[in-house]
């Protein structure tokens, strides 16, 4: 590497910041304790990033294991059918549980939300910084339960005698923990549900924090309808988190009580009702789907507008559709139970409301498209991911209509069609939005550039791999391939082979993306304060932001008005013209 002179940190006017003043949150305080005990939302966000990406890796390992098992129609890993099938069942269960509870739910709110929410509000921190740190440790504690479950499972396989000593390990119930299977399972269900319970608290605390922050910390000049749409999305998400998660908590608590204290609320042998568990579980878990997707939509709203360099179209409709989705999301849980014997009237109501959820989602897509219309579109990596998001979300959303239609759902329920659908919505959309957000805010978070070329290669691999893996599963599902099958009839072989190969491509792509980030941390060059020409408040400070976020508190303006920023070729970023922006300049010189 040739020695490149280290570019200076610049402020929003493109002026170099005095070296001594160029304090940032990464250098503010050294040593491990300054991280572990920090109350700084940015550092908490970064710690979340490390943990959540580790969880994503873990969940990914299980994904590869289970896809590899499915490459042959019969037992692939072990000749002994019982061992093999149990191994597969535990793999898909842990894949689901880890990905849902430890990756998708916290990914965008806990990493990008934590980091960006106060910045976007022009505030110094979230409303309750201590609660924020507690939330992180709840996440860590909940994850520890899952690691315990996993470790016990691995040790039990290695040393079978241990089973007699400390009971079953691993988890084989599916991430949904359906009773009565989960009541009777000999695996470590109690520990896993306790883990999900604690992770739920992490989620609740984050939600409480965000709601209070958005209500109380908005600066003067930022009315509700001048907030960036990402904040609207986080607000709607938080409402779901605080209203739905407690119900999951009590459900899991009842399940633990069933296993340890012989409470029989869900156990048919003790006078309980197993379908009641499903009602309880989906009362949380369907809204939880929107916990995953709403912040993703918020990220996309930001990215589409910035990279089209055009004011977002239909701000009010996008913001309100987030709330509409959050509210309607509470009224559709029964569509997971059309085959359970639930009354036809109830099924009809759930189906009807499910159909109406399609509309706010469609409104968002059309508004994004209209934002792009006659814009100035730059296909940088975040925009590529955003376009990938629209592609995947459109497919995921439209296949949701198949599942919402009662008669058709009876055929495709619990088949690979459902698997493909929710991967398109949850993974395709949420993962792509997460990656869009990561690449969009990366320069702000770390103040480093990354390789556009390799980031784009990563995108194309992930995009191709994803579609290869999951599109074929729609066909397998409509042909009748049931989900959660360790082995399957030969007629489904070709679909599984294609899907498995796709998953390998997807994996390679994800590692390329990871490589790009690591490379950027080591070799990346200093970025300007505003590399994309965005106007939300997080871009009104240096990259990376100082410990207190802003050296000078910026005035709140329309976050989607980009007209004041001009391109500076030398910095490869956008700067404010002091003459054009007297108010801001005044604030800066005050």
């Amino acid at each position, binding site marked *: 590497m040739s020695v490149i002179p280290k570019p200076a940190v610049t402020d929003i006017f493109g002026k170099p910041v005095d070296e001594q003043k160029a304090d940032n949150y990464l250098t503010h305080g050294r040593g491990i304790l300054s991280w572990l005990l920090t109350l700084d939302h940015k550092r908490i966000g970064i710690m979340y990033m490390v943990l959540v990406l580790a969880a994503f890796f873990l969940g990914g390992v299980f994904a590869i294991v289970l896809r590899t098992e499915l490459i042959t129609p019969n037992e692939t890993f072990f000749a002994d059918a*019982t061992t093999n099938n149990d191994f597969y069942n535990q793999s898909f269960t842990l894949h689901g549980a880890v990905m849902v509870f430890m990756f998708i739910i916290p990914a965008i709110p806990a990493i990008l939300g934590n980091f960006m929410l106060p910045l976007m509000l022009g505030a110094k921190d979230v409303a309750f910084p201590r609660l924020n740190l507690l939330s992180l440790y709840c996440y860590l504690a909940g994850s520890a339960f899952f690691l315990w479950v996993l470790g016990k499972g691995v040790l039990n396989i290695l040393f079978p005698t241990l089973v007699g000593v400390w009971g079953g390990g691993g988890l084989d119930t599916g991430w949904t923990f359906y009773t009565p299977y989960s009541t009777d399972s000999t695996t470590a269900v109690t520990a896993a549900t306790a883990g999900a319970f604690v992770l739920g608290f992490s989620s609740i605390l984050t939600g409480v924090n965000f709601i209070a922050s958005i209500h109380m910390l908005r600066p003067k000049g930022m009315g509700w309808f001048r907030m960036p749409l990402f904040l609207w999305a986080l607000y709607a998400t938080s409402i779901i988190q605080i209203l739905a998660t407690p119900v999951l908590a009590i459900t899991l608590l009842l399940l633990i009580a069933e296993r340890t204290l012989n409470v029989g609320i869900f156990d048919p042998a003790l006078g309980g009702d197993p379908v009641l568990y499903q009602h309880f579980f989906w009362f949380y878990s369907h809204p939880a789907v929107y916990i995953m997707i709403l912040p993703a939509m918020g990220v996309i709203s930001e990215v589409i507008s910035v990279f089209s360099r055009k004011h977002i179209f239909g701000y009010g409709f996008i913001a309100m559709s987030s709330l509409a989705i959050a509210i309607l999301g509470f009224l559709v849980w029964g569509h997971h139970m059309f085959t359970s014997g639930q009354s036809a009237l109830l099924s009809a109501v759930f189906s009807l409301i499910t159909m109406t959820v399609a509309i706010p989602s469609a409104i968002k*897509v059309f508004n994004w498209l209209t934002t792009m219309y006659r814009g100035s579109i730059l296909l940088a990596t975040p925009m590529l991911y955003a376009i990938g998001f629209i592609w995947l979300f459109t497919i995921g959303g439209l296949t949701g209509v198949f599942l919402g239609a009662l008669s058709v759902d009876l055929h495709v329920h619990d088949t690979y069609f459902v698997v493909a659908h929710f991967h398109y919505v949850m993974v395709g959309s949420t993962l792509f939005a997460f990656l869009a957000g990561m690449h969009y805010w990366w320069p702000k978070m770390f103040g480093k550039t990354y390789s556009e070329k390799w980031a784009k290669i990563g995108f194309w691999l992930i995009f191709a791999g994803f579609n290869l893996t999951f599109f074929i599963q729609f066909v397998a599902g409509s042909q009748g391939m049931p989900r959660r099958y360790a082995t399957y009839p030969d007629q489904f072989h070709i679909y599984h082979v294609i899907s498995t190969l796709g998953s390998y491509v997807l994996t390679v792509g994800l590692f390329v993306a990871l490589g790009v980030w690591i490379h950027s941390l080591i070799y990346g060059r200093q970025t300007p304060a505003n590399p994309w020409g965005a106007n939300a408040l997080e871009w009104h400070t240096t990259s990376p932001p100082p410990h207190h976020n802003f050296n000078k508190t910026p005035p709140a303006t329309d976050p989607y008005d*980009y007209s004041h920023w001009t391109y500076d070729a030398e910095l490869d970023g956008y700067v404010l013209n002091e003459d054009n922006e007297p108010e801001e300049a005044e604030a800066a010189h005050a």
Partner: protein
Amino acid sequence: MIVSLAQAQGIGMPVPASTYANEVDWLWNFITWVSLFFTVLIMGLMFYFVIKYKRKHPDERPHGMHHNTALELGWSIPPLLIVLAIFVWGFRGFLDITTPPANSYEVLVTSYKWGWSFTHPNGGSSDELHIPADRPVKLVLESQDVIHSLFVPAFRAKKDCVPGRYNEMWFEAPWNPQLAEVNQERVNPEKAWTQAPTMAFDLYCAEYCGTSHSRMITMVYVHQQESFEAYLDDLANWMEGMPPADIGARLYQTKGCIQCHSLDGTSGNGPTFRNIYGTERVMTNGERVVADNNYLRQSILYPNQTIVAGYQPVMPRINLNDVEVAGLIAYIKTLSDDYTGDQVSVDVDGVEETEKTDPGVEATTGAIITAEQTGQEQDNIQQETPPDQE
């Protein structure tokens, strides 16, 4: 794959084989075309904009509308009307699928980890579902342990088997000569019905139920009236004239023992049957028991009272009559390496005695008892289901 796609009337769906399948497929196709339209529209516009409005200079300042309520309503209301129409069609189809016609042929379905048992009104039961063509068939679903779900893709039919309650489903398979064929592997020259053509479809368990969930697969055979009646007669009387060990061998296959108990000495979820007879077993509580007739009988009928060390109490209770239990025990005896022949039989009291009577006569008597009793049971079950289901 391409062939199956081309054959199917529903795009990407298996060949429809029930009366309501076409209705489902019609809605399926409609949604597919709607989805295709919107996908092409959205993707097309998106790619067009990306190319047409590519950024040429970093300082471009495009201007445009910020909002337009008429436009918003314009693209909200038509999709709303479309999804409402889909809802209505879906609901109408759903009502057809979930409302069994009067006078349906009724079959009791018992699901357990991991197998199916289909009991016909004449008391005969089997692990495969045989049904008459052109006649509505109502299945009454029950589960002995966890939730299972009966799924026949060709019929577009699925319903959960929930422990603690009876669910119902129905379908009617019209006779389609193009799908019917004689299953050459199963032809038995002594039984005419095995030579008649049937339509065969896969039947899956669709609700995750544990280790062998993916092996909880069986077949639905659709018969024409004549061969169906012959099948039923055969089903009710299959034990007639059969030596106990052969009865046991068949029950081993059809009652699900095969899922967990191997014949080759390897252990699955349960101990192997090989060389189990007469050997000493160590229980979880440390007790040592010899696997004699009484032990085997007790273990079959009350599987979880005592458990052999190293196993979990996971075996479901299987409904078996005395003849069947005796048959299974006789079969297990033949699996010992030192088995020398059939000098010894087990009678219904489970007491060993030297064989004196003709085994065929005994088995026949047992079979008749079975048929009568199960027939009564069938009546009981019908009484227990709420009147509005009938």
